[in-house]
């Protein structure tokens, strides 16, 4: 083994010798390190960096890390393992007397950064090239221009090529001696790039730029601003959609129970919480008994949460709500009492603190689409909310249970006269609504703290959605949830999160005055309800 390594070393040495034999820019620049002047060191850095010598990268890195040493006019570098190497030849040498590190100041450090950026532009690793291109874009060091041109010529990856061209444009734009056509082309490139950095470059043109260039730059900057504003709006709409989906999940079960029974179930939020705790329990069991199933934990939790919350819902309906028909206000109070009991029950069993619910691997990370960053868990929740919505719509539209529920919603007494057992439908509808709340809890456990107060945070928002959307029509809930979600997120940048929410609440209160039965009210001939 030792012999093999020594052969390799000899080989490397040989190459080093070979290049050293041909005196070039590298050899010219090297001695300047020994001059002990910052200006010379800076010149040496750019000389070495531009040389293309195989040791150039090592030398500059050594300088950055304080490992570049000089003694008696010769330059050495200490490599990571502590060996001393002659920078001119690349051969290992014995430590000489009077070794001193080459000193650097901020100016030199900047030159080093730019030089390193320039040199890694040619790295075989595409990621490193991209990183280097971004570094050059930021530093706008004209010295990197030749390397940049070379890199662009041989670049094959499109993303890296774009970054490289952006960097070249940044340099050319800020260079007074670039030709007018070059600078116009640079402005065009930056315009296409169109991000915040490009905008900053275009608006901080060096003084004394010709008027045509200044004009082109300001035009391009305007274009970018418009586009950025547009993307910003798109981003906000996406956040709104995501918030709307959360509201939809929380409110859709409420819409069913409110629709059929005219009862606001104040314990609805607690059904959501129970769903979240079911997820927590499922994950705990999986962690201890079958860690391999963790990725599927949410899929296992979904039906369980539906069953648990649904069963509790039916129990509540049979033991409490059943006796309060025709007295919606009393039902509201009784379910509020139940919500207190459920909350305290969960607090007693699981403790008042937040419980840890993990996110499966397939839900973490983010998808980058044209400057937007969409996290996978948000995407999952949006998709999931729409799936739940469609499934419920299907149940109500195509099953006999759905038919009965719609009949009872529209006219309870008539439905009863037609032979529908309305009290049974009430129980089932209540179970269905609660079960859906449980499912919502599984989803919300991924984005919210699982604590006994989980449900309370959603209850007023859910009310708002249902009241705004109107009763007895799931489409109303969908439109209500999405409108509120998007309006909230669009208001936020202007009014702030809290004020935006207040404005929205006031708007809903005023809206109810205009349409006391919500957006999609059931049409009927009722004198009062």
């Amino acid at each position, binding site marked *: 083994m030792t012999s093999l390594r020594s052969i390799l070393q000899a080989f490397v040495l040989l190459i080093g010798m070979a290049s050293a034999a041909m005196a070039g820019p590298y050899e010219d620049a090297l001695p300047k390190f020994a001059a002990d002047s910052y200006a010379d060191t800076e010149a040496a850095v750019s000389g070495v960096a531009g040389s293309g010598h195989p040791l150039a990268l090592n030398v500059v890195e050594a300088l950055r890390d304080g490992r570049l040493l000089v003694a008696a006019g010769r330059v050495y570098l200490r490599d990571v393992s502590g060996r001393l190497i002659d920078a001119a030849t690349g051969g290992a040498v014995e430590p000489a007397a009077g070794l001193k590190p080459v000193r650097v100041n901020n100016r030199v450090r900047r030159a080093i950064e730019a030089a390193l950026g320039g040199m890694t532009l040619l790295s075989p690793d595409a990621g490193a090239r991209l990183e280097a291109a971004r570094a050059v874009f930021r530093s706008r060091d004209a010295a990197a221009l030749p390397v940049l041109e070379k890199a662009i010529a041989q670049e094959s990856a499109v993303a890296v090529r774009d970054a490289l061209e952006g960097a070249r444009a940044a340099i050319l734009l800020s260079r007074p001696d670039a030709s007018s056509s070059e600078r116009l082309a640079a402005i065009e490139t930056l315009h296409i790039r169109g991000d915040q950095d490009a905008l900053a470059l275009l608006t901080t043109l060096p003084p004394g730029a010709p008027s045509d260039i200044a004009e082109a730059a300001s035009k391009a900057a305007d274009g970018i601003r418009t586009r950025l504003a547009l993307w910003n709006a798109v981003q906000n709409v996406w956040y709104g959609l995501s918030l709307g989906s959360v509201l939809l999940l929380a409110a859709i079960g409420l819409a069913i129970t409110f629709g059929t029974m*005219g*009862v*606001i179930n104040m314990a609805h939020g607690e059904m959501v919480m129970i769903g979240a705790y079911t997820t927590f329990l499922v994950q705990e069991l999986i962690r201890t008994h079958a860690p391999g199933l963790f990725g599927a934990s949410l899929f296992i939790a979904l039906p369980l949460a539906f069953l648990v919350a649904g069963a509790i819902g039916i129990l509540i309906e049979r033991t*409490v709500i059943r*006796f*309060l028909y*025709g*007295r*919606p*206000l*009393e*039902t*509201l*109070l*009784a379910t*509020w*009492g*139940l*919500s*207190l*009991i*459920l*909350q*305290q*029950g969960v*607090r*007693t069993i699981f403790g008042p603190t937040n419980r840890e619910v993990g996110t499966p691997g397939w839900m973490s990370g983010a998808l980058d689409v044209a400057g937007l960053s969409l996290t996978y868990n948000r995407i999952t929740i949006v998709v999931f909310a729409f799936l739940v919505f469609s499934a419920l719509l299907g149940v109500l539209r195509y099953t006999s249970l759905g038919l009965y529920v719609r009949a009872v919603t529209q*006219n*309870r*007494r*008539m439905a009863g006269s037609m032979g529908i057992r309305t009290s049974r439908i009430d129980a089932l509808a209540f179970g269905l609504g609660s079960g859906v709340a449980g499912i919502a809890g599984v989803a919300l456990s991924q984005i919210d703290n699982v604590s006994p107060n989980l449900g*309370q945070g959603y209850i*007023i928002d859910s*009310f*708002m959605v249902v*009241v705004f959307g109107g009763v007895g029509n799931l489409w109303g809930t969908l439109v209500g949830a999405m409108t509120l979600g998007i309006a909230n997120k669009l208001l936020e940048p202007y009014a702030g999160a*809290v*004020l935006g*929410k*207040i404005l929205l*609440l*006031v708007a*809903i*209160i*005023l809206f*109810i*005055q*205009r349409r*006391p*039965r919500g957006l999609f009210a059931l049409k*009927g001939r*009722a*004198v*009062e*309800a």
Partner: protein
Amino acid sequence: MTNQPLLDRQSIVVLALLAAVAILVPALNILAAPGSVLHVSDHLVPLFGKYICFALLALSVDLIWGFCGILSLGHGAFFALGGYAMGMYLMRQIGPRGVYSDPVLPDFMVFLNWKELPWFWHGFDWLPLAALMVLLVPGALAFIFGWFAFRSRVTGVYLSIITQAMTFALMLAFFRNDMGFGGNNGLTDFKDILGFPLQAASTRIGLFVLSVAALAGGYLLCRWVVSSKFGKVLVAVRDAESRTRFLGYRVEHYKLAVFTLSAMLAGVAGALYVPQVGIINPSEFAPANSIEVVIWVAVGGRGTLAGAILGALVVNAGKTWFTGVLPEFWLFALGGLFVFVTLLMPRGILGAAKDIWERSGRRLRPARVPEATAQAAE
């Protein structure tokens, strides 16, 4: 139907009991020797005063829920607004004795680096104006809110929900520092009222007696309202709103008037509450608080006025006892109370007591008032 007398037997009993409380509590605090069973210790006086304020709040809810069928789940907001108006007066009274010793600006404004008093704080160093605001601010909010809500015939659970939204929005607003009401921390560190130090036992007794007097006055006012012709129309609205409208009454005017009056009563309760507990902060606006008030009324007996007072006292005494002895069971007890009362005791303690009284045959009364229901008519 003949008008009921303003003072029936029940009212006389209530007023006599209140007078007894107003005399006994201070007497037992001052005269009974510390350590004796009868002694009411100094920290109990403001606690009882707090209960009395809650009773006044419950009374205001009973006036609209029990007699007009308006279930407001946002009365805590009016209570808190009255409290804030009083808190602003007490804040201005601190003067240069604050931590930052600014002669005009309250501490939190100095802390936020404000240079001058916001316009809505001017004049609050004068008690009559503050007292006027205690009535006007909740009254104006209730008037505007009610004018919109009743005119467009928002009723039942819809009205309950938007009152929740109202108090929730106010809570969020008062949590903001920019609102100029102390944000999160609210208003506190009060020193004195009309020159009397708030920590002194005598001031506390004075506030207690004042609260009992306010409760008695509020009770008389509510009695007067419900025993008048106006009160009869309110009951008609409660039991059959459309029918009342068809008979030619402007239902929304009646509702608006009684809603505004009730909000003012709640504001007075809040104003008396603040100096006795020494703090007012945005959590008083919490939607859950307003719902709790409704259960006090339901426990005591809806639509009886005396029941609201009784319920507020019983539930709050229970709360103090429970949170001291079995803190984790208080929510079970409160939740259970909600379910129990609505299911099994829909007419509350007073209603149940009356039933027992009648069943024992000692007294025969004409048929009782029909149960208030917001029955959905298909």
